């Protein structure tokens, strides 16, 4: 009976979703240009907004220009890390080039590439786009499902400032 309960508990634990207050799962991913490798260790002591996006996702198109402005407004203590989930990096690069053209600014945030979708699986991404606000201690403080508009970004800034 004890063994049955053990298996049942383990099984339920496997199906339990990620939630606020949990430790942010670690990752090791290359940037879109393949030149650098980042993991959670690189952001120790910083507030991180981890955003999962793809070029085919309509909500991502809406929020990306807002993200450019968000990262531009912080010089220290906050990093916006975007993770692209497209099948080919060319699509993502084309998308980011169009964002640069639209905003008239160079992409200021870190753009990682995850073709195997390992990060999306680890973070149990339930919709596109999804964002995870991670505090200095590496704990998930807020899970944002869907795209963010300018007003929501302002709200998020207040939350970031509290965590900084």
């Amino acid at each position, binding site marked *: 009976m004890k*063994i*049955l309960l053990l*298996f049942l508990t383990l*099984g339920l634990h496997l*199906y339990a979703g990620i939630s606020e207050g949990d430790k942010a799962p670690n990752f090791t991913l290359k940037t879109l240009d393949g030149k650098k490798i980042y993991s959670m260790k690189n952001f120790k002591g910083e507030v991180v907004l981890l955003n*999962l996006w*793809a070029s*085919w*996702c309509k909500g991502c198109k809406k929020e990306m220009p807002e993200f450019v402005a968000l990262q531009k407004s912080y010089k220290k203590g906050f990093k916006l890390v975007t993770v692209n*989930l*497209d*099948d080919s990096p060319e699509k993502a690069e084309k998308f980011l080039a169009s964002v640069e053209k639209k905003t008239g600014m160079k992409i200021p945030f870190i753009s990682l590439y995850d073709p195997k*979708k390992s990060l*999306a*699986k680890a973070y149990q*991404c*339930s*919709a*596109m786009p*999804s964002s995870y606000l991670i505090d200095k201690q590496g704990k998930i403080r807020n899970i944002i499902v869907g795209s963010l508009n300018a007003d929501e970004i302002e709200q998020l800034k207040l939350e970031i400032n509290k965590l900084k």
Partner: protein
Amino acid sequence: MKLTLPLFLTLIILLNGCAETLTRVMPYEKEHFADPKMSVSPLAERAEHEGHIFLIREASAGGDSAYQGGCGCR
């Protein structure tokens, strides 16, 4: 008890096949579904034109809406 555990484990393995993560297309896997080619009417203008033709031809037969008699003059 000796038989119950293997049975239980077999049941769990079988039920795992029906797990949501295996049967459901996850949001981040929908790249090809999001392709405009996959939409029911990928060409909006053409769909509108086809709808107009359908209305002229079939509205008189009923089922869609009362529109006109089939002459296409409106």
